């Protein structure tokens, strides 16, 4: 059925995929968030919990991107990816809380390891 649909929509298929399989499943959380957050007090306990859940989720996404990388990142072995992340965090502190500094150091370590394996 999917193959027939792909054929029927012709050149529009990739755009349909982006909208139906990518945009809608993501956007629904943003829309629900607006309705849920509309009447909440910024400094309420519930909001603090929500913010901490969000932080844990973002950290979880980072871990998943590192453990199961896609595309070109998979060329670099796990120890290289984890080491580069640690180096970036260390660089942030050493360069007096500079996000740019941490990012640059992390990327430099990743490229160095990548050059050994690519």
């Amino acid at each position, binding site marked *: 059925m*999917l193959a027939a649909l792909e054929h029927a929509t012709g050149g529009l298929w*990739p*755009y349909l*995929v*982006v909208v*139906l*399989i*990518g*945009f809608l*499943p*993501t956007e629904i*959380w*943003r*829309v629900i*968030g*607006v309705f*849920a*957050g*509309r009447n*909440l007090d*910024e400094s309420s306990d519930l*909001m603090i919990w*929500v913010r*901490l*859940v*969000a*932080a*844990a*989720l*973002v*950290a*979880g*996404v*980072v*871990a*998943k*991107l*590192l*453990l199961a*990388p*896609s*595309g*070109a*990142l998979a*060329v*670099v072995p796990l120890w290289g*990816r984890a080491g580069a*992340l640690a180096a*970036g*965090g260390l660089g*942030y502190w050493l360069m007096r*809380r500079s*996000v740019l500094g*941490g*990012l640059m150091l992390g*990327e430099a370590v*990743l*490229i160095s390891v*990548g*050059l050994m394996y690519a």
Partner: protein
Amino acid sequence: MNVEPVSRPFWPSFVAGVGSAAGLPSLVLMASLIGVGGLTRDIGYPMFAGVLSTILIWAGPAQVLLFGSIAAGASMPAIAIAVSLSSIRFFPMVVSIVPLLRGPDVGMGKLLLGAHFVAVTSWTEGRRLLPDLPVKERFPFFIGFASMVMAAASFATGVGYHLIGALPAALAAALLFTTPMFFTLSLVAGSKTQADWAALILGFALAPLSTFVVGQDFDLLVVGLIGGSAAYLLHRTRRKG
């Protein structure tokens, strides 16, 4: 007699937001989305499908997951569910930024527009910068900031589509590494309390364990609820003690 301001200062605040985004935030997003442009090309999609994914999905990990799963030959319903589960973070992120965006002239439509622009970059920068602004300048500032990073990211998606094949492998890997590295530094920079640190560390540490126990699909849900709630309990005990 009180004189009501007749003109809302939309554009000056919008331009200030654009200016605030023009440096590091835009560069980081560009580096992240070049890799997504490359993934779009890998599966034989047209360039504008990649650019459209940046504008509409506006979530690097979800885009990587979408195009990566298509490349791996996963079924469309399975991909839709996986993408949706990977984007659950937007619910708490939007909930916690809506109170900063709302104001007397910010209705439902504007809030939904603002929420669409929420991603890790605009969320961390929004939470950092918006509280210091007067209430009526917050919404235009946020829209200006987010429009700038989105424009830069869309441009980079198109460039990446044409460029990625010509890049050395180590550099292509570094571009895809930008998202996890920047997400981490954003969290670290935004962590002020012990509870913030606990959420960060628990989220990171629980992810592999959770994938092992509940599988690829629902692992992040478990990570967020357990990690976030444990950090919240720490917050409660600290405050009492």
